[in-house]
């Protein structure tokens, strides 16, 4: 576990997704503050945090939908806000679908293929993608008639049309049935193996942790801590008077985050030793879900 400023990451190779001291303010409200986050080729970074911590805004900045107030966002070496050539290298699934409901599933994929590859797809290719995402039989239906899960599957199909080098996913599992979730895990793993850097926001940690190489906790528009998936699974929020005496990451005036592989008993003993008037111990994952 690493506090935000406690460790300087050393990066090798090309950085595919790079946020450098990024701040974003909208309507006078500071949504992101001095965020620095990097993802290397083949790496998956999972962003977690309560609602309103700025996770989705960070992804929108990476997609070029928003322009940072200060700092720099670089994806595959380019600026996604101003360069569509940069966006051509990015794969994404957003919380709301980016599909044309007036067109059929097949027409949507044909359009996306041409946009990303600059040429028409070879005969049968789109059908093979539709088959992989389980939409062969619905290919001729308009996307507007699709269920939420089917629309999400179509968006997964978009990731298979080209070779994205950077992938940004905002709650990609939402709306998918278990088969769809497994399909998404397979596709993201495949993209990672092909060298794509992935930044993902997901509350479905059961699936997301299986893909993640690193977990970044965001709170109040800042990155508070970096964890390995294993550390994150063993992280607890400890609340009570005197928690500042514990060796952990300060979360609030009376709470810290502690990683304990031995579990709650070890934390309780440590609190006793350090004279902490313990009020609550809760797995970090659960605390985030409780916060929304």
């Amino acid at each position, binding site marked *: 576990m690493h506090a935000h400023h406690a460790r300087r990451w050393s990066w090798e190779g090309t950085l595919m997704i790079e946020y450098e001291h990024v701040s974003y303010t909208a309507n006078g409200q500071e949504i992101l503050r001095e965020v620095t986050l990097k993802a290397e080729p083949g790496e998956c970074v999972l962003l977690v945090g309560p609602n309103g911590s700025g996770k989705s805004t960070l992804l929108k900045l990476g997609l070029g*939908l*928003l322009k940072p107030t200060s700092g720099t966002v670089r994806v595959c070496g380019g600026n996604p*806000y101003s360069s569509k050539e940069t*966006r*051509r290298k990015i794969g994404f699934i957003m919380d*709301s679908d*980016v*599909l044309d409901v*007036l067109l059929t599933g097949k027409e949507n994929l044909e*359009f996306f293929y041409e946009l990303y590859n600059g040429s028409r797809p070879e005969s049968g290719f789109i059908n093979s993608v539709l088959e992989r995402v389980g939409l062969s039989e619905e290919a001729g239906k308009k996307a507007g008639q699709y269920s939420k899960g089917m629309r999400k599957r179509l968006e997964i199909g978009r990731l298979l049309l080209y070779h994205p080098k950077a992938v940004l996913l905002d709650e990609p599992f939402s709306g998918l049935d278990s088969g769809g979730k497994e399909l998404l895990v397979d596709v993201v793993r495949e993209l990672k193996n092909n060298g794509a850097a992935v930044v993902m926001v997901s509350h479905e940690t059961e699936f997301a942790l299986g893909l993640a190489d690193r977990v970044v906790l965001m709170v109040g528009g800042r990155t508070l801590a970096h964890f390995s998936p294993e550390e994150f699974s063993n992280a607890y929020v400890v609340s009570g008077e005197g928690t500042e005496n514990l060796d952990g990451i300060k979360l609030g005036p009376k709470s810290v985050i502690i990683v304990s592989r031995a579990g709650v008993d070890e934390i309780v003993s440590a609190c006793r030793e350090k004279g902490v008037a313990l009020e609550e111990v809760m797995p970090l994952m659960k605390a985030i879900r409780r916060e929304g």
Partner: protein
Amino acid sequence: MDAVLKHELKRIKSSVRSWGILYIIVAIPLGVPLLRGLATKSWEAALPLFLVAVLGPSSLGRYKQDVKNGLIPGIFALPIEPWDIVRARALLSLTISLAVGALNAFVLWYVGRAVGNGGVSITPAIVAAALAGGVGSALISPSVWIKNVGVKMVSAFAMIVALIGSFLFISPLDATLLAWAISALLLGAGALCSINLKKEGIG
């Protein structure tokens, strides 16, 4: 053909197939000058004005639909710039408007001959009117993409003026000039806002 242009064409085809309402939207401005022409036997004047009005409402409806469905602003995460869409829509609007204008000129000429208005013919004024209408529609179409409420108000106002104007203006020249003036105004506002589209807080 450009991927965005092809996409827009497919959307139009899809809309025409499934939206009966589109026919009504087009039929109203087509019908207004026809009624006016029947009443006054002055066919040419209405052409540029109602053509300006034809594609505005349909584009506005489509814009709203796109926002509702999440396509806007999400589409700009794709390798597309606002200008690509504005250009494709303007080109299609222009083509459709000119086709409708030419068809309408022919219908008016034919109807005029049938009701015994011998003065009506496919004159340079009608051609100019069709052109002005086509360009006007093309320019209104991208302007309604804009989030800015002020621009939408101007668009709506222009459409109302166009419809009322269909009844009031007699001279084809006046009508043509008015259509150009409205178009120029909307072009300015539309271009300005489309350039700033991303800065207007989309997403």
